[in-house]
């Protein structure tokens, strides 16, 4: 499903920083994987490469057997929107749109009709337990509710891959547990491949596989 071969990512600034150094990882369909490691270990960079948000300096990233290196920006965007859903630590909801509109947004971007997009968004908000909050603006929702909206948005086209960058990092522990339960439930029900970057060991341990990183390299890969 997801494959990284000898991936290197370096940032050229005043000092060259090697964020990923010769990383090779393979994630199969339906896995729920956590990536852990200290700050600066390269775990978010790894997630950005998997999510087609960034390109490697060298090496190859493939999703569903499709190599990403030859794709232009728009093709990369199409892969992203058809294959990947994102859940961010800081939700990244558009503040001027309601919960329903935020969830419907990726569908509109795919050219769905207004009616169809709203129908799907309403359904997804129901799935994440926000059926009563569809017309609320992000500022009118709690942190947990915002993250649920973000998850609903990530699932809007039922993508095969869901990526989470510290999805519970900005939430209190109880709300974090709720979100984790939701993700585990969605994984079980929909069979979505989930990759989560986290500092939280409880989140890591609830995943079937944990990849540990340090100094830009994979230093551990545990399956449960």
């Amino acid at each position, binding site marked *: 499903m997801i494959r990284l071969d000898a991936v290197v990512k370096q940032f050229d600034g005043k000092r060259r920083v090697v964020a990923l150094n010769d990383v090779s990882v393979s994630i199969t369909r339906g896995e729920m994987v956590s990536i852990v490691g200290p700050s600066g270990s390269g775990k978010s960079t790894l997630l950005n490469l998997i999510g087609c948000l960034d390109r490697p300096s060298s090496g190859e990233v493939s999703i569903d057997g499709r190599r990403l290196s030859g794709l232009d920006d728009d093709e990369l965007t199409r892969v992203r929107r058809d294959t990947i859903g*994102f859940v961010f630590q800081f939700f990244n909801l558009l503040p001027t749109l309601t919960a329903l509109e935020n969830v419907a947004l990726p569908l509109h971007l795919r050219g769905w009709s*207004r009616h169809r997009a709203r129908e799907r968004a309403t359904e997804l908000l129901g799935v994440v337990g926000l059926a009563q909050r569809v017309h609320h603006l992000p500022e009118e929702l709690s942190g947990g509710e915002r993250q649920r909206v973000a998850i609903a948005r*990530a699932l809007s086209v039922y993508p095969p891959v869901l990526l989470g960058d510290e999805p519970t990092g900005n939430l209190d522990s109880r709300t974090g547990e709720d979100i984790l339960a939701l993700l585990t439930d969605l994984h079980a029900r929909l069979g979505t491949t989930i990759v989560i970057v986290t500092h939280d060991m409880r989140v890591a341990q609830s995943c079937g596989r944990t990849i540990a990183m340090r100094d830009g390299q994979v230093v551990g890969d545990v399956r449960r």
Partner: protein
Amino acid sequence: MILLRLISWPYVRKHAGRALLTVAGIAIGVAVFVAMRAANDAVFGAFTQTVSRLAGATELQVTAGFSGFDEAVLERVQAMPEVAVASPVIEAVGATGLPGQGNVLILGIDMTGDRSLREYDLESGDAAVLDDPLVFLAQPDSLMITAEFARRNGLRTNDRLPLDTVDGRKEFVVRGVLGASGLSGAFGGNLAIMDIYAAQHVFGRGRRFDRIDLALTPGVALDAGRQALQQALGPGFQVQTPSARGQSFESLLRIYRLMLRFSSLFALVIALFMIYNAFATAVTQRRAEIGILRALGATRGQVGLLFVVESAVAGCLGSAVGVALGYALAGGVARLIGTLLEGIQGVGQGQAEVTPTPWLVGVALALGTLTSVLAAALPAREAARVDPIKALQRGRLQVLGAGENRARTLVAAGLGALGAALFVGTTSLPAFYVGYLCLLLAALLLTPWLSVALVRLLRPALVWLRPTEGMLAADSLIGAPRRTSATVSALMLAIALVVGLAGIGRASHGQITEWAESALNPDFFVTGSPTLTGRDYRLPEAMTGELAKVEGVAIVQRMRQPRVAYRNSLVLLMATDVESVGRTARRTVLEGEAADMYRRVAAGEAAIVSENFAAGFGVHAGDVVELAAPTGMLRLPVAGVVREYSDTQGALIVDLALYRKHWHDDTVDLFRVYVSPGAVPEEVRGRILTRFADQRRLFVLSSHQVRAYVGRMADQWFSVTWVQIAVATLVAVLGIASSLTVTIADRRREFGVLQAIGGLRRQVRAAIWMEAATLAVVCLVLGLVLGALHLYFVLQISYRDYPGLRFDYAYPSLVALAVCPVMLAAAVAAAIGPAESAVRGSLVEALEYE
């Protein structure tokens, strides 16, 4: 200071483009201010200097408006014990036959007494011309010219110089060339000296002088001398110092000064909005940074001060650039004003030298800095009030700053009601201005609410056009009205100003054209000057009969139109054959009954006043105007008020017989000639020219030529208006460019999210463009509507305040239509750069952007 180095400087370095835009906003405002002021000061400074050079040692000047007076007045003045020297003067603009030279100011003087008043320093020529006045007198073809004039035209002593006289072109002889000092500097050297009696003949003055220049007996105080002369001569004469007389002439140009000042202040107001926008965005953007500062112990005062100091530094820098730019532009503006003045005076002043003055530089720097600080005051206050806890929470930024302000709506309603009440309920001028300001403020306060309402209306159309991008564009504008309110306010004001200026231009041009067609309807105007406003070459009364005898001429109407003093102003006195004019060229009557009005005025019992005279002096039909004629006070009832645009100071129409009786002036400025039915106008014109060939300096202007001239004068008069429109449009374009650059750049994360969840580049790009275009449409709608209101006020101002001209309301639809594509194109063009940067930058960085 340390905060400035640690906090502000890195931010400025990181956002250099934005900082440059802020500084550019101030620089443009200050540059326009400085250019207008410096040019104004240079041109009017040169004018004052010219007045002073021409006056020499003259302490007082005696005039009777611009009508002149009998020679006998000189003897009365000379006989007074308070007067040491009194010398007669004729001052007129003469046309030279020199190629490329154009007009020259001729000073007709009496060499006998004038050398006590003015210094004639001969550079070359026969000194006997000066030493023995009889030499000058005995040779009436003598002229003295300035060194500059001689150099420019390659003339030397005893060379011949062709000059138009009332009897046609004659050859004059250069008897002397004046040195560069004193008198020579006046009018950039475009000056020639002639004997007074020769000047009387050259300009058809008869036995009359234009004025008397005098010096008082030693020991007589200026004021005492002035009072004694005024008492002896009566109210029909003005006894003034040369500078006071210069000022009253300068007051004729007040409208230009007013327009220039208005333009410069307007530029600063727009700059204020641009700076406000930049700082408001900076505060939003640096909220987290401010939160950290507050958490580390910075007080609210320190945070607020940081932004105020930043704005002061930006203001200083922008002002310095603006001052330099302003002085660079001032030369061009001075040339424009110089051309306008030349049109009015008939002779060029020469190139006015623009030199930086410490006063203007100081004022500009202070004003620019103050404007900047003022514009940043609100954002600084906002910064000081940032809650450190909320500001430190990432993501909370998105929820701050949105939402409507109910208090704003209430204040706007209150101000609107007060403005309307002041405007409708009182005739007081200050109350009118306060009312106008209140309504303007109400409109500004309502801008966010109105913008949202408009975008809501536009949303379906946008969604229909491009469902996703349209929705994103509309919702972004609906959800964050405060983000764009400063931009919309600034552009709305700029567009309103464009509409106001264009409206008054259109209305005045239309009405002046209409007036020209009805009032200036003779087939020909026969004059001694090439224009109707030139009054230097007068024609003799005897020409009336001679013209009437020309085959094909049906009617000849005489017109003499000097400026006369009325309540400390110089107004135009139009003395004509009223009975005949009343039959042939009826003006639009605003007060009074036409037939009765013309009958009474023709009988010498009353006067007609122009609309701007009536408004300017508060005179209405039935009132009595008191005119100071050389024979004494003349009390004339006002028989009617008519639409008449001959003069910006106002005009009075009286019968020619009445004028002659009280002013003892039998000269004529122009003849209005109508041809007989069936006669071919061009043939009649040819006969007139043939009849007076070699006898008179004569211009036979067709009504078409005169109307074209009036049109050109009106266009020239409003050329400043077009410059203002150009400045307003330019500022509007720059405003939308700067605002969009700032606001789009500030939403990098939002656009990053859009791309992260599947938005293609073209979709994000289109959403940004549509948002920019929608913003422009909102600005246009609000600006064009506010412009309609603003135009109404501008027309009221011109009527109630200055120059008292009433123009009918006519919305400048063409200009409004022309502004639309300009603003839309500017908005979309301004959005291209930021949109590209938004879609092409690193997605990861965009998502982390705070």
